[in-house]
């Protein structure tokens, strides 16, 4: 479903308060975007490699350009290359560019796509 983290209560009665820096984040994993017909493989997004615990980084991507509750899984390269969705950071300055043809496999990862 759209909400892989739905609800997981880690606070089983008795667990001590978790220190802030050690908080294990429960974030959706293995988010797979819709594969375009000409794409080498579907894009798999990984929260772990994007989230910086220090600095409240959720708001860098939520709720714009990425919605949390009703996320879109369809993104075109043209839109990203113009600075939309992933392209708002992956512009060649903040992070490697979406137009970087040397690094297609960083995002298009067939190995992690679900069967």
């Amino acid at each position: 479903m759209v909400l892989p983290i739905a609800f997981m209560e880690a606070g089983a009665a008795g667990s001590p308060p978790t220190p802030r820096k050690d908080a294990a984040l429960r974030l959706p994993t293995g988010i797979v975007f819709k594969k375009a017909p000409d794409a080498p493989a579907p894009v798999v997004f990984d929260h772990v490699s994007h989230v910086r615990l220090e600095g409240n980084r959720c708001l860098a991507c939520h709720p714009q350009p990425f919605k949390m509750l009703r996320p879109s899984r369809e993104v075109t390269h043209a839109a990203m290359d113009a600075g939309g969705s992933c392209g708002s950071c992956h512009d060649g300055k903040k992070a490697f560019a979406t137009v970087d043809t040397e690094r297609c496999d960083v995002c298009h990862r067939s190995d992690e796509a679900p069967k």
Partner: protein
Amino acid sequence: VSAGLLFDTTRCIGCGACSAACKEQNDLPLPIEPAITAYTWTVVEERAGVNVRRLCMHCLEPTCVSVCPVGALTKTPAGPVVYDSKRCIGCRYCIMACPFGVPKYQWDRAVPVVGKCILCSGRLAQGQQTACATVCPTGATMFGEREALLREARSRIATSGGAYVNHVYGEQEAGGTSVLMLSSVPFERLGLDTNLPPQGLPMLTWRVLSKVPDFVAVAGAFLYGLHWITRRRDEVRTSLDATAPESQTAASPLARARSLWRRLTGRAGS
């Protein structure tokens, strides 16, 4: 069985996902403002070294509901205090009445309404949790039945070895709230009012308002009595005037008019 939230300052990392999800769920305009407004229904504030959420506490006996003259605010059996902008006349009494300072007004609009957290009552009706609890990556905001959340909160305090302040904010405050909070620092340092009475605040006005019918009856009887006495004195005086010598009745035009009126209506007095 009513729903609520348990917020735990020791688990909140201040990421703001709750604010983002709230914006999305309720179609509120960006940006996420630093404090709650009519367009930002929840924020995370850093106070006394911990992160604390600001949102409607969803009182069990809401003052905003009791003061609203048109019934635009309602406490639903499911838990949320909901707001109907179509009924609202914009009097902003709720804003003045709320002990937590939650309802905010759209001061920038020509036809403004009030904005506040409605505990995702639409999602609750569909069997879902609130948006903020759904996206919270640390479980700092936990959704559940209020009674179950209270038990959870007490057990966290009991087993934490003193890491928490020994108090569940919202268990008693203002008669109890559907949103409960746990903290590792005293609640007053989080900007929360710790001097709220344990009874619902509407009781304070009810104590006065419940006496209104009695007051109306007693005051009505008293005023009628005054009226009767005044009229009777008037009657006695005018009848004395009528029997007095002519030289004295010529005194004032008012007395002559009265005398004429008496003769026309045939009310001679005694």
